[in-house]
């Protein structure tokens, strides 16, 4: 198998790209789909900046061959907001000052989303463990943990319908 037209499911939409087996998922996302929210940093699986959700699970797009992501559901940071309305995690990162330079934020938020999808009411320790694979060099993490807790609370309010969000 060499060059092929591959169909990916990215942020709920079908997207096609011409790929070769040696292409990395991060490059297809950034260069072919212009989804530059996914960041490239360490390239070694240490920093988590390239994290996307593959079938809901946090995955390192810089260490994944694009060809192996065919048929899986890919969620990048661009897929979180609904139109102009930010996802509760995005909003709480803004509100809590959990963003400074912002480079780790997409990966951080996607790891947090995967956590909240599995466990809507995580303890601080569970949040720490869930974000252990995402490095931030600006905020010192406290604001980030606060933001995840705030988002968890906001999403719970949402799901009980008191402050329904479409």
């Amino acid at each position, binding site marked *: *198998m060499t060059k092929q037209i591959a169909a990916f499911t990215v942020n709920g939409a079908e997207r096609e790209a011409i790929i*070769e*087996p*040696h*292409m*990395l998922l991060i*490059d297809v996302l950034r260069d072919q789909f212009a989804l530059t929210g996914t960041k*490239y940093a360490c*390239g*070694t*699986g*240490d920093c*988590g900046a390239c*994290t996307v959700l593959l079938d809901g*699970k*946090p*995955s*390192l797009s810089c*260490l*994944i*061959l694009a*060809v*192996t992501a065919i048929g899986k559901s890919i969620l990048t940071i661009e897929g979180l907001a609904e139109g102009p309305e930010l996802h509760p995690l995005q909003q709480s990162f803004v509100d809590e000052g959990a963003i400074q330079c912002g480079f780790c934020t997409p990966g951080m938020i996607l*790891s947090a989303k*995967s*956590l909240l999808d*599995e*466990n809507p009411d*995580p*303890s601080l*320790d*569970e*949040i*720490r*463990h*869930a*974000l*252990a*694979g995402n*490095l931030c060099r600006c905020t010192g993490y406290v604001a980030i943990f606060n933001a995840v807790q705030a988002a968890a609370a906001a999403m719970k309010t949402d799901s009980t319908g008191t402050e329904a969000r479409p």
Partner: protein
Amino acid sequence: MHRVLLPFEFAEPTTVRGALALIDGEKTRALAGGVDLVLRMRLRQVLPEKVVSLQKLPHLDYVRADDLGLAFGALASLRQLEASRAVREGWPLLAEAIGSIGSVQVKVQGTGVGNLCVGTPASDVAPALYALGARVRLTGLADEREIPIEEFFLDVGKTAVRPHELVTEIVVPRPPAGSGAAFMKLAKTSEDIAKVNVAVMVSVGDGAYADVSIALGSVAPTPLRAVEAESLLRMAPVGEAAGVGNPAGAAAANRVSPALEATGNPVSPGLEAAAQAAAQAAVPISDVRSTASYRKEMVRVLVKDALARATARALAGRSDVQAPGGVS
């Protein structure tokens, strides 16, 4: 570090037979989670002509436990193993070892079998499986074989896997009743590989050590069992050896990170002697992470602490570990 991979042929077989036929030697690499392989391809340490993905092989991502033991397939992820209730309750040593790997992403992508097949003596999974007496099942085109994990690791980066062969399953016997275990590791950060790691399991009966296994990682070309140290403790009385009865010893069972400070309890002669024997068994190298002499000394410290903790756990009858963060 290179941004781009060099081209290779790619295949995604859907049967084990199909995969075995394709995996024909040095120039071909099997891809499971890819955490190690893709990284080393980017570092250009590995330049395969052909990559055979195992991800489409059906029914290999299982984690199964029964009265006899635990079995997991070639595609069971580290995260699956860590989160498995059966593993946490029945083989807490394995869950503890995997829990020492920080990154969720690495555990989601990486497989238990892939971790072993890298052949690195710094594997966190391997010492736990050594201490638990695990066996490795290899499937070839003509036959299957099952070997003790000690025979699987041959040298740095070298395992017993032959061309046209795959590790399809790891089998782990159930630890005996009255046993306790502990995994401890020293590393630069939770993301870095171990400078030294140790896994120990002890069974206690009638106030003595009925059985002891001590496995060391990152201090020799392969993981290894500290056989001398084990025989020093076997049949030795527990109270004396573990310093049980003093509060610090009991507290050691539940410490979160006692790596360097759990030794607050008075040195117990039995454990100290075993720990020294374990240090003698280590033949570490000096590298960017540590000097050889420091690693040897840390084997002594970690083995002593791990034995104290495992003994306290055995006596407390506590055999589970907490669920990893985020798993409900």
